[in-house]
């Protein structure tokens, strides 16, 4: 919240956050897009199956976006998430293939493997950023190449397909025949990530480090340890996203994630999180994830070339960062 509030009551605070909060205008854009596409092609766009499609498309990116929000709030960046996703998926698929069978035990081990693979890369990122003081852009550019390289070495470049049928059922199925499991899982991740960020000491320290790392250190916050945890969290979520992606496609999709990192970062920034650190919310990121997804889907439905989507997203991204800078110059001395 950057603007000058006038009152301290909880209701006023909420109202104020809504009116002046950085994610408000972007939420309005999302609503506008949905309304526009609905008006143009109501039957096709505003249908339950279509919304389901959009949500499933967005869910893996949302999981990545939650981690990226934490990292960017610390004034860091993580380019490695797409590669870590692929690496974790490969490790998990290979393990499940080796164990064989279609039991929940196999699936649980596969899940554990994907989380552990993600955590390992995140720990490495975090240590290099916090202890070796290498800029996060460079560290994660390095691990981006390394994680993808290892995934290719392990698989010889051929997608692994050892995904148990039960897992594929989860990845493509719906709860109560209506809501995709993937969407529910991604929503739970986002809600948990949002609560931790907004209401816990872990979240508070994340904001503090992004605002003024030296001040946080002088206030007794263990900055190095916290940064390691934040990068570990982001990569563990990337590992989890890799597992979700396996569940959805029943294969590792090695070649399909080269742009995941930039999409996640764009979603986070469009959602009002500041690249300079210290400001951001998971709600904003969720909205930022849905704007590209809605655009992509809506443009196809109204019969426009989907090539307009990256053009529109690029524009929104630049405007979002411009607004962030403007806010900062206005409210900071």
């Amino acid at each position, binding site marked *: 919240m*950057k*603007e000058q509030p006038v*009152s*301290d009551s909880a209701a006023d605070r909420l109202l104020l956050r809504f009116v002046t909060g950085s994610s408000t205008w972007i939420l309005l854009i999302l609503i506008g897009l949905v309304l526009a596409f609905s008006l143009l092609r109501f039957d096709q766009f505003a249908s339950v199956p279509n919304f389901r499609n959009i949500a499933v498309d967005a869910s893996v990116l949302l999981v990545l976006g939650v981690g990226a929000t934490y990292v960017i709030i610390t004034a860091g960046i993580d380019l490695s998430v797409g590669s870590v996703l692929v690496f974790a998926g490969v490790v998990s698929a290979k393990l499940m293939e080796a164990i064989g069978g279609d039991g929940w035990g196999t699936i649980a081990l596969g899940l554990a493997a994907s989380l552990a693979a993600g955590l390992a890369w995140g720990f490495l990122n975090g240590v290099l950023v916090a202890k070796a003081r290498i800029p996060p852009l460079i560290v994660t550019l390095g691990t981006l190449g390394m994680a993808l390289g290892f995934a290719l070495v392990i698989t010889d470049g051929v997608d692994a397909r050892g995904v148990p049928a039960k897992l594929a059922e989860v990845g493509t199925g719906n709860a109560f025949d209506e809501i995709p499991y993937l969407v529910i899982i991604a929503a739970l991740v986002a809600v948990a990530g949002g609560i931790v960020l907004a209401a816990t000491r872990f979240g*508070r320290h994340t*904001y503090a480090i*992004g605002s*003024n790392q030296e001040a*946080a250190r002088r*206030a007794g916050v263990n900055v190095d340890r916290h940064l390691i945890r934040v990068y570990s969290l982001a990569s563990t979520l990337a590992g989890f996203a890799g597992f979700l992606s396996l569940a959805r496609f029943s294969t590792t999709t090695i070649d399909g994630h080269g742009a995941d990192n930039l999409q996640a970062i764009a979603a986070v920034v469009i959602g009002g999180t500041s690249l300079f650190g210290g400001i951001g919310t998971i709600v904003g990121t969720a909205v930022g994830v849905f704007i590209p997804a809605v655009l992509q889907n809506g443009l196809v439905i109204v019969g426009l070339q989907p090539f307009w989507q990256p053009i529109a997203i690029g524009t929104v991204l630049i405007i979002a960062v411009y607004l962030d800078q403007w806010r900062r110059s206005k409210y900071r001395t």
Partner: protein
Amino acid sequence: MEALRGVDLVIGPAEIVALVGDNGAGKSTLVKVLSGVLSPDRGEIWFSGQRLGHQSPLAARGLGIETVYQDLALAEDLSPHANLFLGREMLRPGVLGRLGFLDNTEMRKRAKDTFETLGVDMPTINAAVANLSGGQRQAVAVSRAMTWASKVVFMDEPTAALGVIQTRTVLDLIRRVRDAGISVVLISHNLPEVLQTADRIEVLRLGRRVASFAAADVGIDELTRAMTGALTEAHA
């Protein structure tokens, strides 16, 4: 480069020691060394009869030492109460607290009380510190140090951005803190303010301590001469 060479500073219990000296004399550097932010290449720090080993801000804090840094060291995007409790957040009672959930209501209330007792006029407790005026920000930093100190407070130009009334409030506060048994090291370029508040005045010049006075026995002229080097040269 050497910022400090040969500074010998003793701070007695419940005493206000002023550090004065020109820009670049090494005042801030000395405070950073003593509060654990910078590690000195040489020298010893003793505290209550114990020699301190490797210092860190956390260790200094554990000893009851608090600091108002010249750059204030505030997290600009956080609210005043979040800054007041940064690094020592209050958690909710029970399970939620063990999970790390913050007790923002309690922290906000205490921060409000603190600002009220210290006579700080905080327009709202929820705005980000970035939106406060320079003086209000300084008040947040001063309040934080005053809230937590139990032995020593270092104050690096705590009144630099304050108005007349707020300055008087902070100086009164410094005396009250001293009367409560806490030592204060006050850095200021305002010599009348220093003379009026401090018990003892230490003069730093080019990284050395060049003079030490009881505040009662010295005037502005003599202080100025010590700060500019005229005094030592005259004595030499």
